[in-house]
């Protein structure tokens, strides 16, 4: 009798554990570029409105959406063009979420050399770029007025000799 009850139970346990390990083993998030909340670094008060997949900025077919367009962003970071010369060149990319209120959070940083290898820039420069990125307050919400949605955005800063050269995308 005990055996008759145990077998189905065991099968359920094995099936459940297989499902769990399959999820754990995946090298990928639900979607490439997803930024999961990290309680160590992210603001717990930053609100995500969508209950599901957060789209990328380009999925709205409007390119980057900012009040004053790209020139307003370029102007905001202009101070970095006057930086002191250093030997550092490459790219600093900051990925983040623009929520349905146009506020930003969940910043993630990727530092890359000109030959596309991971590198570390001077911490002060990275911190300066992050602070200036946090200060940007002209993001236009995704979706429409009736249905505003969050989205992922990134900014890539091309650095040559410690100075800002261009901002992408």
């Amino acid at each position, binding site marked *: 009798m005990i055996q008759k009850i145990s077998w189905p139970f065991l099968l359920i346990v094995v099936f459940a554990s297989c499902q769990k390990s399959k999820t754990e083993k995946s090298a990928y998030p639900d979607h490439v*570029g997803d930024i999961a909340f990290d309680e160590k670094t992210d603001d717990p008060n930053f609100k995500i409105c969508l209950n599901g997949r957060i789209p990328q900025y380009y999925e709205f077919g409007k390119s980057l959406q900012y009040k004053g367009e*790209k020139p307003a962003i370029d102007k905001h970071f202009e101070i970095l063009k006057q930086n002191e010369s250093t030997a550092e060149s490459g*790219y600093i990319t900051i990925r983040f979420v623009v929520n349905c209120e146009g506020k930003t959070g969940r910043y993630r940083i990727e530092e890359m050399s000109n030959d596309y290898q991971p590198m570390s820039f001077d911490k002060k420069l990275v911190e300066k770029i992050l602070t200036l990125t946090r200060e940007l307050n002209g993001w236009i919400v995704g979706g429409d007025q009736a249905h505003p949605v969050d989205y992922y955005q990134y900014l890539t800063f091309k650095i040559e000799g410690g100075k800002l050269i261009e901002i992408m995308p």
Partner: protein
Amino acid sequence: MTKSMLSASRLVFVFLLTSLALVAFAEPNCNIYKMENNMPCYEACVLATTGGGEQGSRKSQEKFDKAIEQCPALDYAYMEKSVPYLKRGEFITWKKLIDKAVELNPTLHLGYRGWCRYQFLRDYRGAIKDFERLDTLFPHDIGYSQNGDYQLTIVKALCYSAIGEKDKAITIIEAQLGKKGYSPMVYDYLHLGVLKMETEDIAGSIESLTRSIALNDYLAEPYYYLGLIYKSKNLKAEYKSAMEKAKAYYLKGYKRFDPYTHPMHKVYLGDIDNELSIAQTF
């Protein structure tokens, strides 16, 4: 020919060019592997080219991994797997994957990699390297950009202009425009006009920008740059009129646009408004 007929023929022209670019980057023909009796690669190719998760989803990325595991030489799977990393700003991972695709099939992926280096990263020197390597593989025509906007030789010229070699860029563009059988793409003359303006060939610039308008009168940009030239020549009425036209076109949506990035020589409403306010007191 009426203006509406001209407009329609231009749209057809742009559509054909875009289609050509897409055809140039179509999915592989898996049957080639079957004909070679290479069934693991045939099955991997079928797996990689059939549906299975939206771009960048875990399901889709794992599908490409399975295909690569089964057929490590399947360049298409590496290339497709790389795309979401590029679009979403994870460039280190993108580069590793696209490099693998290029290593396996340089003739197919070099032009695409060069274009992406230009479009997403403004990696002008890296893009030039890819295009010049492609020149050695395809001396007559190195193909078109992924979005269908450019023949890649023109992009190579834009890369040279961005690293300060503007005269060289002009020479490359003019040589491409003069090639037998080459039909100018919609932004070729716009870039040529801007470069000539920047190198102070004013007559050449006006000529190129005017040709840009004749080829595609759905852009604010040539009017804006013509306006700058008129301003420099102190032609007040022409300056104001060109800027007003640029603004009207911009507001109608007649402007350079790319859903992912900001194209070179694109103008913005703030730039035009600024010139219009100067024009009021000029």
